[in-house]
Every structure is written in structure tokens, then in C-alpha cells.
């Protein structure tokens, strides 16, 4: 397993080297089910899709910097093409970020182990993974391609970026590690969690909302990694292990439920022609199997207990609480706020998941398309089912899953002390089962079992006209309306009056203005007359000569 495989193709004269270790195997395991599910769901005929997959696998299996960057960029390029075919508008921003990320990574892999190298790695991988403040492209680009690709981009590609981050931060650069490296990741992660979860709560497009939730989960993973990195640099083996477990398990879980949700969103799109929650509703009636699977995925996304998302969240909160006990007063205050932010994020994620299911799949249809939706096609359902089945071990026996991931943790932090997970779903299920049995017995023994259908109270609105068989959709709260309290109470404070992402306002827009200024300057240069051009050439020549004269004479 530790052997290198050398390929004859690759960098001229050097070829490519492949190398697998526990870390890359783990991420390959995260990747494999998604690829399978996406392929089954209908992407298997697209060459670009397989190139995309090949790039990701290559990045994971890379044994040298060239192969790593090659695979990484191949992945970006192929996904760019897929985004482009889906929607042209976000493609440019997407590829800008992708190239920016390689432009950071390529220098970083050649720098000696140092803080600069880490900052570059963090910038490069953070941009690709959608870590705040470099995340604003993600909610635009991930929804653009077909659902299978969106699924793989959110569930897989983002993980590849994190894989690179982990590999460099924990293995390659470990000699120069500083505690503040971890702090950088924690701060970025917390910002991602809050912004991602908040936007997920507010977006009405299903896929955009899922992409925002990806930002949130990337933030969670980054917080875990940051704590682990900090703890490792400060020599706290127990905390390192907990935080690493949290991050890795979160990656595993997110790699299962997010593709599932994206595939489901694709099926909703296929059945109704839209993914806007404001036009959906009541899908559970026409698409019961899809709805059930989506419910499972949403439970994971909301990090509810007994779902796949809870164990990582549990570990992460433990890690943050433990980390708050280390370091000085600033660390205490910082981690306390981090904890508050994580709580906020978790509640927002819950709200977003409830909104997804409650507005999209429950209630009454808001359009005829939603009313006439038929159940999902077999391929996507099969893919989603596969992911759902794989979610079970993560949801029910997270301790065993973590035990299987032990080699990765020891690889990343050789001194790590690993404790057993104190969250065990099975006793809880037993407990709930006992209660359910008792309650069921009581209801059965003494209760009246009759049920009768009745018209619900429609809140005092008049009778709906006959052409609206499901009643007037406007008397039903919309996705926007559901989020209205949150919008009024906090979103305007964080996102500004128009609800734009702060990264958009404070990072992308100024850079665009700067670029525009550069373009205008270049245009002025381009419009120069021949004489002015000659003048420039001449001036440059004289400058060079002058520099030469001064350098040699002086």
C-alpha cells in the first residue's frame, strides 16, 4: 500500500507517481458511492463527467505535486465545462476561483514548509472548497450543471480540496506547524457556517439552498480541522483526535446525504420543471419514495440525532468545548463565540431542512406542475437508495465507522489519543422503542381508533375557486414567508438590506471594480496612436538604459 506506482506519462522526463495511504483511501471511499450514484442517476454517458471523476481520483491517488495539481485542475476544468453547459453565467466566476486556487497551490507545493506555504494552501483549497470568504461562487456554480454533477461537485469535489488541505496541513507541512494556522481555519470555518446556514435558510431555489448548506458543512469540517491543527501544534493529543474525528466523519456524512439531496432535487426538477420551493409543495403525495429519501437526507443535513449528520456535529461541539478550556482569555472568548455561532448554524440548518421538506414536500401544491408530479425515475432513485443505505452505518453505528477510520487519524496525528464515542444511537433507539411499545399498547388498549378525513380549517379565507383543486396557493405560507422572521431578525444584519452575501459585497465587487480599472487602463494603452506607442517604446528603452547606466556606473 505504501508503494509508489510510476506512470510513464506526465511531466516530461519525470512521469507521474501514484501513492495511496489511509487518508487517500478514506477520501476514495467517500468519493466512490457518490460517483456510483451519479452514474446510476444518468451521468454515465457523459465523457466530461468521467473526466471529472478521473481528475478527482488522480488528485487523491497522487504521489507527487505534479500529479496532484494535474488531477486537481483536470477536475476543475471538467466541472467548469459541465457548469458551462448547464448555465453560462456562473461559469466564469467558477473558473476564476478554480484557477485562483491552483495559482495558490502550485507555488505552495514548492515552497519549503513554512507559514507562507500554509497560507497559500489554505487560500487555494479554501477557495475550491467554498470556505468563507471565498465561497460566494459556490451557491452560484454548484446548482448550474445537471443534478448528478451538482451532487458530485458538492459531495466530492469540495472534499478533494479539503483532502489537499488535510494532506498539506497535517502531513507535509507538519514540521512548521503553528497554532495560529488552526485559528485561521476556525475563523474561516465559523464564518462559513454562519453565512452558509443563513443563506440556506433564505434561498428559495432548492439546489442553491443545498449548495449554501454545503458551504456550511465545509465550514464545520474546517472548524474541526482547525481545532485539530491547533491542538496538534499545542501538543494536545486527545483534542486533536476528537477534532479530527469530527472533521473526517463530517466529510463522510456530508459525502452521503448531500449527493442524495442533490439527486433528489434533480428529480424534482425533472418531474415539475422547477426547483423553486415557491412553486412546489405537496410532492410527498406524488413522489412518496423520493420524498422519503429526501427526508432522510434532510435529517442528515439538519444534524438531527439518529441521522448521519449528528455524530460529527456531536464530536465537533465536544471538540470546541474542550478547546475552550485551552489557551488564554482570547481563546476562551473566541471559542465561546464559536460555540454560539455553531449553535446558531445548527438551528439554521435545522430550519433550512424543515423548510426544504415542509414547504417542498408537505402541504398543498403551489402550482399545477407540483400537483401533477410523478415519482422519480428508477435510476436516480436507485442511486439515492444506495446512498441512503450507506448512510445507515454512519447514522446508527458511528463508533464503528470511527474505529474504521482510526488509521487515518493516527496517520495525521501520530500521537493522537483516541477515546470512544460517547454518542451511541442504539441505546437511544432501544429507549425510544420501549416507549413506543408502551404508548402503542396504551393507545391500542384504551384508545378509539377511528380516523375521519375532514377539511382543514383554512384560516378564514374564502372558498377557493374550482379551477384550484388544491385551494388557493397564496393562502399557504411560501418558502420566502417561512424565512421571513429570520430575514427580519438577523439576515438583514448579516447580509445587508438586499440579502447579498458579504463576500460578494466586500470581496468580489471591489475586485471587479479593480479589474475594471485595469481594463480601462489597458484600453487607453491599446488606443494609443502609433506615435504614442513609439513614445512608450522609446521611454521604455531609455528607462532600461538609465537603469543599466545607474547600476553599472553607481
Amino acid at each position, binding site marked *: 500500500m505504501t508503494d509508489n506506482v510510476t506512470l510513464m506519462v506526465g511531466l516530461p522526463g519525470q512521469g507521474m507517481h501514484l501513492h495511496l495511504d489511509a487518508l487517500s483511501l478514506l477520501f476514495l471511499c467517500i468519493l466512490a458511492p457518490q460517483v456510483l450514484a451519479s452514474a446510476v442517476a444518468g451521468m454515465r454517458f457523459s465523457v466530461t463527467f468521467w473526466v471529472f471523476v478521473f481528475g478527482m481520483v488522480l488528485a487523491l491517488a497522487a504521489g507527487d505535486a505534479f500529479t496532484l495539481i494535474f488531477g486537481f485542475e483536470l477536475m476543475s476544468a471538467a466541472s467548469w465545462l459541465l457548469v458551462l453547459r448547464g448555465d453560462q453565467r456562473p461559469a466564469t466566476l467558477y473558473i476564476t476561483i478554480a484557477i485562483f486556487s491552483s495559482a495558490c497551490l502550485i507555488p505552495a507545493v514548492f515552497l519549503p514548509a513554512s507559514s507562507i506555504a500554509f497560507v497559500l494552501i489554505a487560500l487555494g483549497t479554501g477557495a475550491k472548497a467554498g470556505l468563507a470568504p471565498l465561497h460566494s461562487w459556490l451557491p452560484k456554480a454548484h446548482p448550474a450543471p445537471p443534478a448528478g454533477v451538482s451532487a458530485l461537485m458538492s459531495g466530492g469535489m469540495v472534499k478533494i480540496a479539503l483532502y489537499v488541505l488535510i494532506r498539506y496541513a497535517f502531513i507535509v507541512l507538519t514540521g512548521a506547524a503553528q497554532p495560529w494556522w488552526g485559528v485561521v481555519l476556525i475563523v474561516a470555518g465559523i464564518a462559513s457556517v454562519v453565512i452558509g446556514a443563513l443563506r440556506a435558510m433564505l434561498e428559495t431555489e432548492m439546489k442553491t439552498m443545498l449548495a449554501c448548506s454545503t458551504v456550511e458543512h465545509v465550514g464545520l469540517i474546517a472548524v474541526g480541522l482547525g481545532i485539530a491543527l491547533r491542538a496538534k501544534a499545542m501538543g494536545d493529543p486527545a483534542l486533536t483526535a476528537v477534532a479530527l474525528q469530527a472533521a473526517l466523519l463530517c466529510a463522510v456524512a456530508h459525502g452521503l446525504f448531500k449527493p442524495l439531496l442533490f439527486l433528489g432535487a434533480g428529480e424534482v426538477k425533472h418531474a415539475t420543471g422547477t426547483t423553486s420551493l415557491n412553486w412546489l409543495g405537496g410532492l410527498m403525495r406524488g413522489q412518496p419514495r423520493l420524498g422519503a429519501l429526501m427526508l432522510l437526507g434532510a435529517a442528515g443535513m439538519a444534524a438531527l440525532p439518529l441521522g448521519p449528520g449528528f455524530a460529527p456535529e456531536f464530536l465537533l461541539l465536544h471538540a470546541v468545548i474542550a478547546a475552550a478550556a485551552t489557551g488564554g482569555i482570547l481563546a476562551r472568548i473566541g471559542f465561546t463565540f464559536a460555540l454560539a455561532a455553531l449553535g446558531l448554524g445548527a438551528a439554521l440548518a435545522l430550519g433550512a431542512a424543515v423548510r426544504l421538506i415542509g414547504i417542498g414536500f408537505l402541504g398543498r401544491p403551489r402550482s399545477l406542475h407540483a400537483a401533477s408530479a410523478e415519482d422519480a425515475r428508477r435510476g436516480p432513485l436507485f442511486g439515492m437508495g444506495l446512498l441512503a443505505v450507506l448512510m445507515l452505518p454512519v447514522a446508527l453505528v458511528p463508533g464503528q465507522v470511527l474505529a474504521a477510520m482510526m488509521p487515518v487519524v493516527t496517520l495525521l496525528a501520530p500521537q493522537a489519543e483516541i477515546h470512544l464515542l460517547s454518542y451511541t444511537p442504539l441505546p437511544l433507539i432501544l429507549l425510544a422503542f420501549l416507549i413506543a411499545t408502551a404508548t402503542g399498547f396504551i393507545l391500542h388498549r384504551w384508545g378509539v381508533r377511528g380516523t375521519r378525513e375532514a377539511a382543514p380549517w383554512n384560516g378564514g379565507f374564502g372558498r377557493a375557486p374550482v379551477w384550484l383543486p388544491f385551494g388557493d396557493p397564496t393562502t399557504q405560507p411560501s418558502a420566502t414567508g417561512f424565512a421571513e422572521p429570520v430575514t427580519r431578525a438577523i439576515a438583514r444584519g448579516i447580509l445587508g438590506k438586499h440579502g447579498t452575501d458579504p463576500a460578494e459585497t466586500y470581496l468580489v465587487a471591489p475586485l471587479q471594480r479593480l479589474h475594471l480599472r485595469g481594463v480601462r487602463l489597458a484600453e487607453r494603452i491599446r488606443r494609443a496612436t502609433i*506615435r504614442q506607442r513609439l513614445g512608450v517604446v522609446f521611454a521604455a*528603452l531609455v528607462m532600461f538604459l538609465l537603469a543599466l547606466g545607474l547600476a553599472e556606473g553607481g
Partner: protein
Amino acid sequence: MNLTFSLAHLMGGLILLCAFLLLSQRRLAAMITLYQVQALTLSAAAVWQGFAQHEVNLYLTGIITLALKGVLLPIALRQIVLRFNLTRAVESTMPMALSMMLGTGLIGIAVLVVLPSTMSAVSLTREDLAIALSVVLLGLLVMTARRSALAQIIGFLSTENGLVLAAIGMPGMPFVAEFSVALLVLLAFLVVGIFLLRIREHFDTLDITGIEDIERRGR
């Protein structure tokens, strides 16, 4: 210092003087005359160097320079002036005084740049190289400082004279005649281009009415 060197030096100085005076001239006719003087001096210098170095090549260069640059080109240029009615003063992009000052500065730079070189075992002195470089730079300055196309051409011609001056000073340099011919081809194209394209005022505004199928497109 023997006669060879001092005479060559003197001629070099004369050429530089002409180049410098070109900067200060406002009228095309005067510029052409100055250029002619420069070219004649150059041909004399070439012949003198040929005599000093016993190189047939240099004689040839001198003769070509004399015939084409000293006689033919000025005639053609004067024709253009007459044909296009360009006798009035030439617009300059900068005040004369400033361009003179810049010119002086350029000569200073040329000297500064050449100073560190060691001219051992070479017949061309450091000063000669500085002169040639100054002439080249001054010619370029004329090209950029003047708005009139013809004046710019004259600047270019002066630059080219500087080149030839440097070439003939090079000890035993092969292909000197070939170089000067090749440069002349360039100059010929330039003058013919001016003539054909009727570039009356600036390089930038070609007056192409009458050539054919005029079609301006946005880029």
C-alpha cells in the same frame, strides 16, 4: 592620437551635431538639409574608415550612402514636401526647449551607459560608440517628439545613420555593406509607404481616400 582617429572622431561629432540640430528645426526643408549633411558626412566617414582599415566593404558602404542617402533620398523627400505641400512649420508635441533638454539628457545617458565598457584592442573609441548611440537615441526622440509623418521619417533616417556610423567603426565587421543595404530597403519601403499612403499629417491618420474599398470597422 593619430590622424585616423581624430578625423573619424571629428566626423562622428559632426553627425551627432546634425542629429541634435534636427531636434531644434521647425521646418521640413531645413530638416532634410540637415539630414543630407549628416548622410554626406557619414559617407565620408565610411570612406575614411575604409581607407584606414583597408576594407573594400567600407568603401562600398560609403558609396552607397553617398548615392542613396546623400542624394536620392533627400530628393525624394523634397518631392514629397512639394507634392503634399508641407512647407509650413512642423508641429511638435513638446516645446523645443524641452526636447533639446531631453536630447542633452539622452546624450548624457549614452555616455553614462558606454563608460563602464573597456575598449581594449578596438579601433572604435568609447567616445565614438557614445556618439553613435546618441545619434540613435536622438533620432528616436525626433520620431516621438514630432507630429508630422515626414519629420518622423527623417528622425528614423537619422537613427539609421547612427547605426551605420556604429557599423563602420566596428573593427573588421563583416556584412557592413549588406547591413546598410538591408537598412536602405527598409527606408525605401518607408518612403514609398509615405508616398503611397499619402500620409500627410500624422502616422495615425492615413489618408487613404482613393485607394479602394474603404471600409472602417469597429474592433
